């Protein structure tokens, strides 16, 4: 796995690999085919301030967890989808797109999944710098403020 980025053993049964968006597809294919990491646990996201970090956690029958991490720039967070390799990842990607605004190129069904229907565009509530804007209607029911 060294060709995909720096490999680090964080704990006894946990490996972290820092890779880049272009290599994530190959990294997951290799982890699945060569190392037996055949199942996706989850995709987690961290807001590091400058960057948004994506972590793909995979596990296999050997009970070792591999975490493939990506750093995406905050102003243009775009990464290719992995839902063609791991079908459940599509739902995680939609949720991450709702809450953090990361765009997954190639995901066939990039609709809102967790936020309500009237939620405005370009508002990503789990980013650290997000504050509710008093002038914006976030959906739900209109409340008359007096």
């Amino acid at each position, binding site marked *: 796995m060294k060709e995909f980025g720096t490999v680090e053993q964080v704990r006894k049964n946990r490996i972290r690999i820092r890779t880049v968006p272009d290599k994530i597809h190959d990294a997951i294919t290799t982890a699945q085919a060569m190392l037996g990491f055949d199942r996706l646990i989850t995709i987690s996201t961290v807001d590091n301030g400058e960057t948004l970090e994506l972590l793909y956690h995979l596990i296999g029958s050997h009970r070792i967890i591999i975490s493939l991490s990506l750093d995406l720039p905050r102003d243009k967070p775009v990464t290719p989808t992995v839902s063609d390799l791991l079908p459940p990842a599509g739902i995680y990607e939609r949720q991450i797109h709702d809450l953090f605004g990361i765009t997954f190129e190639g995901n066939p069904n990039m609709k809102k999944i967790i*936020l*309500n*229907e*009237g*939620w405005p565009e370009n508002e990503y*509530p789990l980013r650290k710098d*997000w504050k*509710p804007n008093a002038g914006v209607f*976030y*959906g*739900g*029911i*209109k*409340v*008359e*403020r*007096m």
Partner: protein
Amino acid sequence: MGVPDTGMSQRLVNWARAKSPWITVYNSGACNACDIEIIACLMPRFDVERFGILVKGSPRHADILIVTGHVTLKQASRLRRVWEQMPEPKYVIAMGACGASGGVFHGLYHMVESVDCVVPVDVYVAGCPPRPDEIINAVVTCLNLLEEDAAHGGKEWRQKKPATGVDAEGKSCTVVS
């Protein structure tokens, strides 16, 4: 409305209503603790059927709507629609700390401030979660309200005018119907 109907049939209807309230439970995003307490309420130990209380699945059959939990933005329009489906006279019980003010979820990005921003609430039950006896007490309070409303010929006699002042954060809210 305003003048109570004291005809024989209407008195019979009022009597029957107070003896057999049918409730429907709506979970608008709660943690399920309130729902478990309601289930405990229905079990033989507390046995709400001695008051004639029956839980119905459909809001079209119900007199009392129990809203458990805070209201998320996604649930707000659904809760409103459920409430609009209920036949008059209808009563709403907001259950738990979440129903009254949002509880631990107050001020989050996906929240309506409280249940009474969406539907008018008649009775609040305190607690997180409330005990089954408090829920029964709330329903019985609701029945007393129902009888008083029947005597007054409507709900108007106890409805307060909306507040005209602005509080510190400009956040006082009234129901827009």
